């Protein structure tokens, strides 16, 4: 583990208005009362597309992680409640209960399996398209916030009861460690090929977060199961390759027949999803293939903006006519590619994509929160791609904008060491305060903050790990006092740059 002594430029810059808007949107979602999913509605039934709540919540949490780790590392207060709120929502039955139906199988290419038994427990077998996201976000929360609430017995429990159906209460109790065990041993038992999403379908995209989650577990325990899984995964996939004959990432392997399904159609979502996440553990490989892959899926537009090839998704062949059946659903190609491009640090392409989104995809602000509202129309009158789903509008563009080059790679390979949590950290704030810069310079022993108070009333922030200090603010009416172990800084309305010097500070673990 390491704590970089050189402060990255992105960290010095902090977050801009749009990045702050994405953070606030994810906080908005986290704060929704149970059952409220405003602005998150999906076109497909049962979360059967990539806008399933589980994906929106998990990639929203990843976006927060990237923004916190790389842009505002000393302001956990800007992220913590939002992050835990998203993890908590992953536990809601409306997020995982699709599994009791999907577990029974029945897709046209798995007809030979017949009807499988109904399974309510959403992590007991298969369903890596849910379990990996829960496991990786719960462990990531522990890593980033030094808070082991999801490691407590029963902290990750799936409960459901209904008055008039369901044959009794459902209660499946796990925590982040027992969930990690379940996934790890499923991986072992499948020969490290991966764990299926829908029965028999081992998708390459959804096994990436599993590897990420194993790594988070290792960072907490000192273990090395991620290396074990990566070694096994590489070996198991050696006969297939991670990319197919056309150079694009393979989509899935059918578990029973070991038949590979390549990405023959060059769907952008497959490349974006796998590329963004595989970079964490397989960076050289991902970068080696990036340029050729992305060139196949980008659309250059007049005016310097960029769009993405968004194809209808083939779902099989009509057994009577032999014709291909495809559905023109939103596969979030645009969002997946933006996330991938951000991880690659391809700033020119990312700027082109985000410019397209801002020009044609209806960015919408509510109480300082930024989202791109759902739009089911594919092209506008001028032929610009304008379709927007909630996965892209809430989470993937947030991910792309908050990420930095090799951002997920950094979470995987260069975690904070324990001494990070001994630095001065902004851990509290009044409701009307935003923090847009927050980093600690160990060489000068100074915490640098830019804080905005939006209201007219009194505003404050609370900072931990502060002994003797000097405070320098660019506006005169700042004052301090102590609340328990925290230093409270009272702020005037407007934006204030604060430098807090702690000359006696030494790292502690």
């Amino acid at each position, binding site marked *: 583990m390491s704590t970089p002594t050189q402060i990255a430029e992105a960290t010095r810059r902090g977050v801009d208005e749009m990045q702050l808007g994405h953070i606030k949107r994810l906080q908005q979602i986290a704060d929704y009362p149970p059952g409220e999913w405003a602005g998150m509605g999906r076109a497909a039934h049962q979360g059967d597309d990539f806008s399933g709540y589980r994906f929106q919540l998990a990639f929203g949490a990843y976006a927060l992680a990237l923004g916190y780790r790389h842009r505002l590392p000393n302001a956990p207060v800007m992220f913590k409640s939002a992050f835990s709120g998203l993890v908590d929502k992953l536990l809601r039955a409306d997020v995982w209960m699709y599994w009791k139906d999907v577990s029974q199988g029945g897709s046209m290419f798995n007809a030979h399996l017949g009807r499988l038994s109904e399974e309510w427990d959403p992590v007991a077998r298969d369903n890596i398209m849910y379990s990996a996201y829960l496991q990786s976000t719960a462990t990531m929360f522990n890593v980033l916030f030094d808070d082991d609430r999801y490691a407590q017995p029963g902290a990750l429990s799936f409960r459901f009861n209904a008055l008039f159906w369901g044959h009794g209460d459902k209660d499946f109790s796990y925590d982040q460690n027992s969930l990690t065990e379940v996934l790890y041993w499923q991986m072992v*038992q499948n020969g490290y090929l991966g764990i299926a999403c829908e029965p028999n379908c081992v998708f390459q995209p959804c096994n990436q977060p599993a590897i990420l989650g194993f790594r988070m577990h290792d960072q907490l325990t000192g273990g090395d199961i991620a290396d074990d899984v990566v070694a096994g995964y590489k070996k198991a996939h050696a006969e297939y390759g991670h990319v197919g004959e056309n150079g694009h990432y393979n989509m899935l392997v059918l578990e029973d027949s070991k038949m590979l399904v390549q990405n023959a159609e060059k769907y952008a979502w497959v490349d974006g999803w796998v590329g963004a996440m595989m970079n964490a553990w397989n960076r050289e490989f991902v970068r080696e293939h990036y340029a050729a892959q992305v060139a196949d899926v980008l659309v250059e537009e007049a005016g310097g903006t960029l769009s993405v090839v968004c194809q209808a998704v083939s779902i099989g062949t009509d057994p009577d006519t032999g014709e291909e059946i495809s559905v023109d659903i939103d596969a979030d190609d645009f969002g997946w590619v933006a996330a991938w491009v951000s991880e690659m640090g391809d700033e020119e392409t990312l700027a082109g994509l985000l410019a397209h989104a801002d020009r044609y995809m209806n960015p919408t602000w509510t109480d300082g929160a930024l989202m791109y509202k759902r739009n089911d129309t594919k092209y506008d009158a001028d032929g610009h791609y304008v379709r927007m789903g909630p996965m892209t509008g809430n989470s993937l563009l947030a991910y792309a904008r908050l990420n930095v080059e090799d951002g997920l790679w950094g979470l995987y390979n260069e975690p904070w060491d324990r001494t990070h949590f001994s630095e001065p950290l902004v851990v509290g704030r009044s409701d009307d305060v935003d923090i847009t810069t927050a980093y600690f310079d160990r060489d000068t022993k100074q915490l640098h903050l830019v804080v905005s108070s939006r209201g007219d009333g009194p505003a404050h922030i609370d900072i931990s790990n502060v002994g003797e200090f000097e405070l320098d603010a660019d506006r005169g009416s700042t004052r301090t006092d102590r609340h328990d172990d925290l230093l409270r800084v009272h702020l005037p309305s407007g934006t204030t740059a604060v430098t807090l010097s702690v000359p006696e500070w030494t790292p502690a673990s």
Partner: protein
Amino acid sequence: MDTRLVSVPGRPQFDLVDHHGQPVTIDSYAGQYLLVFFGFTNCAMVCPRALARLTGVLDRLGRDAELIRPLYITVDPERDTPAVMKEFLARTAPTFIGLTGTQGQVDAAKEAFHVFARRKDDPSAPDGYVMPHTAFTYVVDPDGTFAAHFGDAAPDDDIHACLHEFLTASATQ
């Protein structure tokens, strides 16, 4: 790799036949530590290497090793009859007891130990196939619960230290 940081869920169970032809379950070995490895006698590399190094670890434990029962469970019961296993182990790892059974019995044991194995065609192999399989070594304590497990790359010293620690703890109880 120290996979002890992720414990093995469930309880180890099997209902098999040993290489003397006697039916055995995990209760047959109650009160002993078990050192369990899954494989198949036609395995070209993984099994011979694992059996050799586990034998070496047991040798280093000296007389303490008498408190440990090493078991080699086949994932290829079609070929690995009791007689075949007896002959193979006498040649390669005589301290091990070989266990086999029907395909259903072996599948149940694999499930209980979370073991992967599948038949894969290989024209260069005996009978034209091999059985790629999980290469974990499991330690089961005298109460019949999973105590530890090690990956194929675990250093011999780690396995030795772990077994020594278990045996020392048992001796002081």
